[in-house]
């Protein structure tokens, strides 16, 4: 880290980090700006003039509306499926001692370490050899639940690890059945983890291109639509819809953060630890 040279001025590092942040954000800003462009020609690469045309009619491009609808439906259904299956798996892994837990933990992790192109190709081999189901909406959905599952398990599991089991025991001592204990005690406590897992799954699903590309048949999702368009023509409407998805995600994110913070404030029993966050100054 040359930026941390001895006695190097402090602000130099801040400036360097700031440039890194700008690198991350500029391409996003460009998408938003270029959604207001009125491109001449088929590609939206060069700024011409400000226009609201694309925003007034974002679905003017044939096929773009269907693609977006497919994406949203698949994202919603795969989120639901993966969240349920993944939460059950996480519960089993954290709450119970059983034979084979370590290998299962390892097995859950492998899909995350597998390149997407391999996941997609393997699933396609599978569907081609079995012949069923027909490549299309169903196979995309199967694939999305598959790759989302491990993410859900890991997210929920991390939430379950600090879980205080005495609360469940208390409920059982007070006469609650196992199901009541789960519904009234366990589930509310792990809910924040489940919600963040579901949000992650939704975001991953709506963004996925590679695995979908291998298993889509003739069904087109929004990323596949962009892929097809990228060689032929890139209308500004693509940027408009991307901006809309972006704003929606930011809103969802802020609402979750805000709600979790409120929930934490309400649940704060433990006093705050003394703040040790600041970087100590060199002697």
């Amino acid at each position: 880290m040359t930026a941390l040279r001895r006695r190097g001025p402090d602000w130099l590092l801040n400036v360097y980090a700031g440039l890194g942040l700008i690198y991350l954000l500029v391409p996003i800003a460009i998408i938003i700006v270029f959604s207001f462009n009125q491109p001449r020609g088929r590609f939206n690469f060069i700024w011409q003039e400000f226009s609201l045309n694309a925003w007034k009619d974002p679905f003017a491009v044939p096929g773009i509306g269907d693609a977006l609808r497919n994406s949203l439906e698949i994202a919603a259904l795969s989120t639901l499926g993966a969240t349920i299956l993944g939460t059950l798996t996480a519960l089993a892994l954290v709450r119970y001692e059983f034979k084979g837990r370590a290998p299962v933990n390892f097995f859950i992790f492998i899909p995350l370490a597998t390149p997407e192109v391999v996941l997609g190709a393997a699933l396609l081999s599978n569907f081609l050899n079995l012949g069923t189901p027909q490549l299309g909406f169903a196979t995309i959905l199967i694939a999305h639940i598959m790759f989302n599952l491990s993410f859900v398990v890991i997210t929920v599991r991390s939430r379950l690890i600090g879980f205080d089991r005495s609360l469940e025991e208390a409920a059982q001592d007070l006469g609650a059945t196992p199901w009541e204990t789960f519904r009234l005690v366990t589930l509310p406590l792990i809910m924040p983890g489940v919600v963040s897992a579901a949000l992650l799954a939704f975001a991953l699903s709506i963004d996925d291109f590679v695995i979908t590309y291998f298993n889509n048949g003739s069904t087109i999702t929004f990323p596949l639509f962009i892929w097809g368009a990228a060689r032929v023509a890139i209308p500004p409407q693509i940027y408009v819809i991307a901006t809309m998805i972006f704003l929606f995600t930011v809103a969802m994110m802020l609402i979750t953060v805000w709600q979790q913070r409120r929930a934490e404030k309400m649940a704060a029993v433990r006093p705050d630890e003394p703040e040790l966050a600041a970087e100590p100054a060199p002697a």
Partner: protein
Amino acid sequence: MPARLRKAALPYLLLLPGLGWLLLFFAIPLGIMFLESLKTGTIDTGFELTWAFSNYTDALSDYNEQFLRSFEYAGLATLFALLIGYPLAYVIAFRGGRYRNALLLLVIVPFFVTYLIRTLSWETILSDSGLVVSTLQTIGIVSEEGRLLDTTVSVVAGITYNYLPFMILPLYASLERIDKRMLEAGYDLYGRRRDVFLRVTLPLSMPGVVAGTLLTFIPAAGDFINAELLGTPRQFMIGNVIQSRYLEVADYPTAAALSFLLMAFMLIIVLIWARIAGTEALLGTEGERK
């Protein structure tokens, strides 16, 4: 007795749906793809399982260039992501103060925009008549005829960008956990800034470095979107080959063999990297607990 049995069976029942799904749609497909990689034939005559292990050696000799390029590009992108990401994670973790969460949110903002769109945005930025190229031409770094799009530069820049948040988040997580009293102790012992960084901060953040580099390197090595949109066939990586062998040429055995070769190489690289960096990383976490 039945109640106890039911209790013993409960974890397996909970596991069944999720694990079953992964078996059916992850493990078994990998097995089927392995058989696929040992077949011979064409899409017209059909494929037959002949245990043709030569598919692997053929695939390797035909596409060793793309393999090497994949690992070169992924390695470069991982290095650049580390050089950009570490200082950024450091500043957010140690100097972010009450803005830490907001800054972290900015780091993941790119994830809110579809991957392909982010890449198209780079096509806009680096395009021949764009601001970057014309500026670099004025300074003289890029010649009058020169371009950035469709070169190694554009593909590596795209990959670096797309996976950068994967680098920053684990780095931040490990830096943020460091007990700041350790740094104070370093300074109290008259450690200079550089010494404290090299001997305290960096070793303690090694778990983040290992996680971040792996999370960047693995998907980067299998990527084909950046090479396709920001490059030409001269920049194609192994992902491009697998994709076109599978979906355009329908040469399934070669594509399947390439997929397994990719996984095998990746595993080897990951193991070597874990050996080099992992031991220190483990020591780092141990030191932190004490």
